[in-house]
């Protein structure tokens, strides 16, 4: 046993190196996050709302173009994109729905009180179930859902100003007209 102990670091390292090799040779690009859900119906959800005593369900959103934004108070990039969400909601009059991912409701409330609340309604996804249904990679993550309730666009990571102007707004306007 004592003689085998010095072999442990080597064995662990070789395992790790093998894993690295597999990850490298699989040819996957970690930044490319295809959603299996594009043009498919958005997952159903029915969550308690940040507003006491109310609920937020996918049923209630049917027939409208909505932007669903997963966020959390502990997430730094969420703070970066937040002014853009405010602009989307207040200046562009887009219906933005928030889902607080794995966050304590009081923290989410404080976050929104601090930075401003762009959301028409905010669901509490305390255990991350809804996040799993959407195939969430991390927060922030943003989905565009059309009137028929289909996911049309997925944005992983913070929305950037360029993305907002060049992609998101044209798409939203087109969906709104159809």
């Amino acid at each position, binding site marked *: 046993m*004592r*003689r085998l102990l*010095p*072999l442990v*670091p*080597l064995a662990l*390292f*070789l395992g*790790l*190196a093998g*894993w*690295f*090799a*597999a*990850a*490298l*040779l*699989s*040819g*996957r*690009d*970690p*930044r490319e*996050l295809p959603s299996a859900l594009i043009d498919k119906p958005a997952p159903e959800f029915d969550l308690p709302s940040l507003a006491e005593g109310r609920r937020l369900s996918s049923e209630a959103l049917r027939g409208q173009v909505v932007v669903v934004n997963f966020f959390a108070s*502990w*997430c*730094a990039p969420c*703070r*970066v994109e937040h*002014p853009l969400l405010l*602009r989307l909601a207040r*200046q562009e009059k887009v219906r933005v729905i928030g889902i607080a991912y*794995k966050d304590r409701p009081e923290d989410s409330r404080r976050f929104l009180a*601090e*930075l*401003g609340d762009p959301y028409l309604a905010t669901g509490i996804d305390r255990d991350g179930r809804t996040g799993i249904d959407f*195939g969430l*990679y*991390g*927060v922030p993550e943003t989905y565009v859902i059309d009137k028929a309730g289909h996911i049309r666009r997925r944005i992983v990571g913070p929305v950037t*100003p360029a993305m907002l102007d060049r992609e998101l707004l044209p798409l939203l306007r087109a969906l709104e007209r159809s």
Partner: protein
Amino acid sequence: MFIELGHFALALALFLALIQSVVPLVGAARRLSGWMSVGRTAAIGQFAMVAVSFAALTHAYVTSDFSVSNVLENSHSAKPMLYKISGVWGNHEGSMLLWILILSLCGAAVAVFGDNLPRELRARVLAVQGMVAAGFLLFILATSNPFTRVIPAPADGHGLNPVLQDPGLAFHPPFLYLGYVGSSVAFAFAVAALIEGRVDAAWARWVRPWALVSWCALTVGIALGSWWAYYTLGWGGWWFWDPVENASLLPWLSGTALIHSAIVVERRDTMKSWTILLALLTFGLALVGTFLVRSGVLSSVHAFAVDPARGVFILGLLVLAIGGSLTLYALRAPAMQGGGLFAPISREGALVLNNLLLATATGTVLLGTLYPLFMDAFGLKISVGPPFYNRTFLPLMTPLLIAMAIGPLLAWKRGDMVAALQRLWVAFGLAVLVVLVGLWLSGFRAVLAILGLGLAAWIAAGVLAEWGERVRLFRVPLRDSWRRAAGLPRAAYGMSLAHFGIGVMVAGISASAFEQERIEALRAGDRIEIAGYTLILREVRRVPGPNYIADEAVVEVLRGGAVIDTMRPQRRLFTVQRQTTAVTAIRTGLSADLYLALGEGDAEAGWVIRAWHKPIVSWIWLGALVMALGGVVSLTDRRWRVGVAARKPAGPAGAQPAAAE
């Protein structure tokens, strides 16, 4: 012309590195003194060649030679000179060249300053350094050549990523690389010791200064990077547990363990095989970090351009260097059982605890960093964020920090815990006082943060108590205390400073729970109230820069009705890249930072201004600097320069004066 010369010099450096990795090794095995001394010449020559090569690339950047594809892609004629130079290492190829420059500098330094090393050891260390250098030179020449030409040369370059055009970032990579690459020296010493099959107190005494240099540089490098993130990214955070940040933290954690465990080898001739393993792992983690950043297996805001060939190559280097050295370790380590026995409550015991906790923390951060990669193999995309680290890393650090004040008060071999704690009662009282006052002032909110402040007080007061103990403060006349204080070894002051720095940093981190934040859309004349300050937006105006145009907000800062300052946060639009960056305005002070960032907006709707008041946030970086300073003071200890001429056969170094360390 210079460019071709640089390319040629790099090829020559590879040639010299290959000689350096073979000839001295054979010489050491066969005791051929001529062969062994080849290592010294080759190491110095290799450094000279890499320096020529680096100078050639820098020259191309300074003169904006856009016929070089690396310059074309990363520079622009309208860029300020500082960023033309820092642009050399603001990209993958150039930063690899800087990495190799520092690597060969370390090799040359061992060659020049290693005159007091036994010849065989020096020859073997230089050979291992040569192997590492050869691997990386081959990597840069084969996959990342910075000297590729573009013909015909375009009129102007693409410019450097605006976020990187910043003085903090200009100096961050050189320090970080010195930290990473400096750990290759401890690695080379460890491999040489494994080849010789001998580790003793003298060996530890040679290794420790090198490990310390690397640790200091890494500390400064990480602090600079964190400070840069704080003042440029414009959202007030300073650490994000991003994979690339973790990649620099990992070797820092294991390097911290190394500089402590090497003390035990030096003083008590035990924990040898563990110390060797730490030296191997510290450099190994630096290499893993390089691999993660440059191969594209993990996604990160810092990641360099991805090329699978590079990933495969670095992985190959990784397997050769770490796999090879760990194989050697598996073969030789069982023969290296240590000498000195010690009780669990003793200086050695405290250092073992330090090492256990630091090693576990390293493992935790490594797991958090690699977990997304593991899950990816099962088709799951996840990210690991601050909640994971808050729950795992902090509980590991807390006992370490508590024990940090006690450890230095314990004697070697067998310590007296009760006596040590008795000497710390003032520190304990102070910590309790800080917690109670803090709880009272905050109205029993943010309890964890206040406990953190109490911990900081405990550490700082513990350091002073330990110093007071050494100089017998208030127990002998002050004059005698003064004489004792002057006679203490520099290494003792180094330790005190470094530990005190940790206390300062812990205070700065804990206080972040008390920051205040306001975000509002302001028109000219509107105001924000924050933490007793009144901020009035006077105007937002257009300001031209050398390679950007900026919107600059002029914000008056009032306190008690009087204007005390004017702050000017900017948003810069870089015309070449069509990219905007925020330039924050920060009033830094020892007691608090006032931090302003300008968001989007216009004269009618108003401009979004984010204001933070962050109590003692600057202590985080100040603490890191004090820690690094402690390392530097320790390096000036005369012990490193004298007294190790002869190598004793293995045995406890008990003859040394007990006051040192």
